[in-house]
């Protein structure tokens, strides 16, 4: 994984003025349809998620509560194009602590899923998706390391039936998502 890119630049609150034309009233329903996003409207903005979020503690701009509010309000473009979305580490602390049982981290994941469909996919996911399609695993393990297993007495690494995985990539529609390629929105 690349460890060099930084995502601290664009704070969600950067443009303070909201235009009515920026609001997509149906967005919340789109989120609710994705498993994990169902309870988005139950969030009453108490801020427990942000207060307990280890990432928020070290970020100037990542605030899960704010992401939830923007999504509730229908600020679709703003939410989906935000770099902040990708800073959730899925530690699930917010899921355990939410008094409204919103599953904040799952709602954020649902928002990422929509962002990907709209063409915003960080390169790391494209790369891992490609590796799973090619090898069955999220990383392409070099031949040398596979041979090393035998040298040190480990059993050979089982090989996945790639044809079977390709069928599932195709059937779920994920193949199209990673093939979408270098659209204007795809982040590098």
């Amino acid at each position: 994984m690349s460890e060099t890119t930084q995502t601290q630049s664009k704070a969600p609150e950067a443009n303070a003025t909201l235009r009515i034309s920026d609001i997509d009233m149906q967005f919340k329903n789109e989120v609710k349809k994705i498993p994990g996003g169902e309870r988005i409207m139950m969030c009453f903005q108490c801020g427990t998620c942000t207060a307990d979020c280890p990432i928020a503690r070290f970020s100037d701009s990542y605030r899960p509560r704010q992401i939830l509010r923007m999504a509730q309000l229908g600020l679709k473009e703003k939410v989906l194009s935000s770099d902040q979305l990708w800073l959730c580490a899925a530690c699930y602390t917010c899921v355990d602590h939410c008094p409204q049982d919103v599953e904040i981290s799952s709602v954020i994941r649902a928002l990422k899923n929509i962002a990907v469909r709209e063409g915003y996919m960080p390169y790391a996911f494209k790369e891992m998706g490609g590796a799973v399609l090619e090898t069955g695993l999220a990383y392409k393990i070099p031949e040398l390391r596979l041979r090393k297993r035998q040298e040190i007495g480990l059993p050979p690494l089982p090989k996945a039936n790639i044809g079977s995985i390709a069928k599932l990539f195709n059937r779920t529609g994920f193949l199209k998502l990673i093939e979408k390629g270098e659209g204007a929105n795809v982040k590098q």
Partner: protein
Amino acid sequence: MSNNKYLLYLGCAIPYRLLSYEISARKVVEKLGLELVEMPDYNCCGLPLDPADHEIMLTLAARNLCIAEQKGLNIMTLCPGCAGTLRKVNKLLKEDKHERERVNSYLKEAGFEFKGTIEVKHLMQVLAEDVGFERLKESVKRPLVNLSVAEHNGCHVVRPQKHIGFDDPENPRILKSLIEVTGAKCLDYLDETECCGAPIVGVNDRIPLSLARDKLSHMKAVSAQAIITVCPFCHMMFDTNQARIERMFNETYGMPVLHYPQLLGLAMGFSPGELALKDLRVDSSKLVNLI
């Protein structure tokens, strides 16, 4: 189903980067009398792709579960991410007919069907629940009484509680107890249950490295001699990235990071070589000399 025989699900990160975890886990588990069967045809658990697409995550996880069902064996994983994902999806598909039907409609394409006949456990669960503390205690030949260490649990072993249902995420005790079985002292430290930050390393490095550094400093403050992990990603955050953290913050830690089965293995009497301690990035020879 047998509590002594497991399909070993290795996942991706361990065969890619952390053979030391696999080597040491196999050693201790086999010494404890458990039989491990290599899991054929397995694929990525799906978790790394969940942010991109939830459906492919469910499908990849379910494909693994189907393979284990065909083998008629429960799964043991070494990675909490894999364990959490497979456990969560297993529970979801067993309990929710609609989800099961949808995922089965995908799986059908590749000739699989989820039936819901097996269980998934992380190594820690297998040790605590199936082997049990009594048997673990009996296996200790060389109590590590001179060691004081800090634990780092790995989020997905315990959270979210409603999906995982193992240990108490607010006050996790099981890894501590597993450490204490070896004779070593397990120290409490500030923000002990906090995430290491590893999952977002692919999109941002400053935040996760700051998080890991924060934890390192809290462990150092209580004079921990080593960190004990049960997760490949947490391990890489503290071990592989420790030199980077030291450079970034101009600090020195030099804190060895051991996979739990390495610690247990030392207490069982295995040599550091047998447990692949030399593969660790931070030198552990001073620690080994204390034993």
